[in-house]
């Protein structure tokens, strides 16, 4: 580590390199910030803002938005539960301290080849699942089933399952493995040593991270509404299509409220377990 630090390149060529990448990105993508200030854009923005206000909150519509927000929340919750069901076994079998048990502590070379295969398979699956974004998964599932919350739940469950698998395995590996080895020394199985010796050390951090992922799932679930997963996201998208900008604003306000509430909740959970 220290040798790498000493071999740091001088900062001037590095700054040039970053500038070159920046320039290439500008021309490559055709990104034009100056478009923001054209008469056309400013005029559109003005009309949009005028039409937004006041937000449309007819009694019936507010209630409808509330129900849709609950749909979004439920989709996120189901997705997170699916993610935990997928991620927990991946995390356990993807952590050396769990699969090798006391062998991990004593450094014994008699590690079973089968155990190693299990470990590598779990790592590989969780890398594959998380490398494809939830939105892409959802699109794939829309092709298989139909529109609705199912593709969204599966998309969140699979992508987040891969993420949880990776993070859980790291959290399990960052525990002290000697208490579990001490439990194995009493004649307990590796199964018991895991539940009694390893998991209790990591469960707080695992719960906190899961709460954070649920928070992300709420946002993701709203976004997937735009592609037909239902809920508040779909409502915003439809109002947008029909140029009912006052309804768009109401929807966005409800979404902001929902996300803020979930963030508060998730922060509380994370503080509790930190």
């Amino acid at each position: 580590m220290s040798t790498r630090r000493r071999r740091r390149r001088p900062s001037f060529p590095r700054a040039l390199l970053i500038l070159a990448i920046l320039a290439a990105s500008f021309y490559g993508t055709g990104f034009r910030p100056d478009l923001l200030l054209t008469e056309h854009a400013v005029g559109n923005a003005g009309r949009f803002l005028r039409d937004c206000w006041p937000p449309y909150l007819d009694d019936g519509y507010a209630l409808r938005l509330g129900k849709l927000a609950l749909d979004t929340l439920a989709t996120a919750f189901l997705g997170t539960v699916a993610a935990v069901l997928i991620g927990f076994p991946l995390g356990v079998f993807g952590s050396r301290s769990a699969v090798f048990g006391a062998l991990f502590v004593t450094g014994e070379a008699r590690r079973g080849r089968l155990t190693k295969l299990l470990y590598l398979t779990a790592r590989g699956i969780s890398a594959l699942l998380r490398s494809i974004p939830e939105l892409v998964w959802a699109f794939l599932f829309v092709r298989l089933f139909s529109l609705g919350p199912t593709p969204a739940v599966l998309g969140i469950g699979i992508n987040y399952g891969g993420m949880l698998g990776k993070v859980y395995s790291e959290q399990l590996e960052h525990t002290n493995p000697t208490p579990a080895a001490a439990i194995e020394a009493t004649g307990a199985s590796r199964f018991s040593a895991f539940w009694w010796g390893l998991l209790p050390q990591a469960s707080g951090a695992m719960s906190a991270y899961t709460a954070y992922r649920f928070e992300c799932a709420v946002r993701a679930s709203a976004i997937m509404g735009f592609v037909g997963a239902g809920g508040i996201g779909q409502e915003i998208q439809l109002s947008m299509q029909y140029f009912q900008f006052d309804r768009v604003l109401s929807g966005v306000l409800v979404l902001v409220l929902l996300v803020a509430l979930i963030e508060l909740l998730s922060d509380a959970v994370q503080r509790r377990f930190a």
Partner: protein
Amino acid sequence: MIQLQGIERRFGSVAALRGVALEVQEGEQLALVGPSGAGKTTLFNVLNFTLLPDAGTYRFDGVEAAEVQGDARREVRRRIATIHQSHDLVGRLSTLKNVLSGRLGYWGRMEALRNLVAPSRAAVAAVHGVLERVGIAEKLDERADRLSGGQKQRVAIARALFQDAELILADEPVASVDPARAVSLLELLTQTARDDGRTLIVSLHQAELARRFFPRIVGLHDGRVAFDRPTEELSEDELAAFFQNGSPSPSGL
């Protein structure tokens, strides 16, 4: 009960044990003395079936270490309780759960999970009894990482007692406590082992405590047994010489 012959164990290029031979009878109590790095912890790890020796044979009650695996190995291991030098308690679990974990070798998967979530009343009462014996019954529900060093030591002893093993190995059980506490802990260990008819091997690096509490002392130096004698045949000078130059004879021969 214990038969060790020509035990060798290396860690990479370091030889931790070089030809250790030792016999211990059932119900015996002995102190294992020697400086840090003499091989005491490695010897304990061989004795409790954590490490296999590279060479030599180890038999526990007729069971040869190199020949048992799986369930048979687990069945032997639950007859041997180890009090580890660093206690090795699970910090986020309560004292109750830590002591309970001593019995995990006897439980199947479902029972292990059930007791983790909701221990039976009988089990809690039994743990309470053991904690009273070591004098910290009031810490039953305290998380282990909130205990002091001396309290953790007592919980580690309670876990070993709760395991109900025939052999108790205690690795430096008084290294982390003050001298007065050290005496009371050794009294507790030797007395309970005697009452319950258990074999006890305690590693120490304090010569005077070994002489005071144990009828037999084995000196380990540089991975070898330097001496193995009844305490009454070992003078204070010889023990002091051992700690100075690794041999009980003044000349070092």
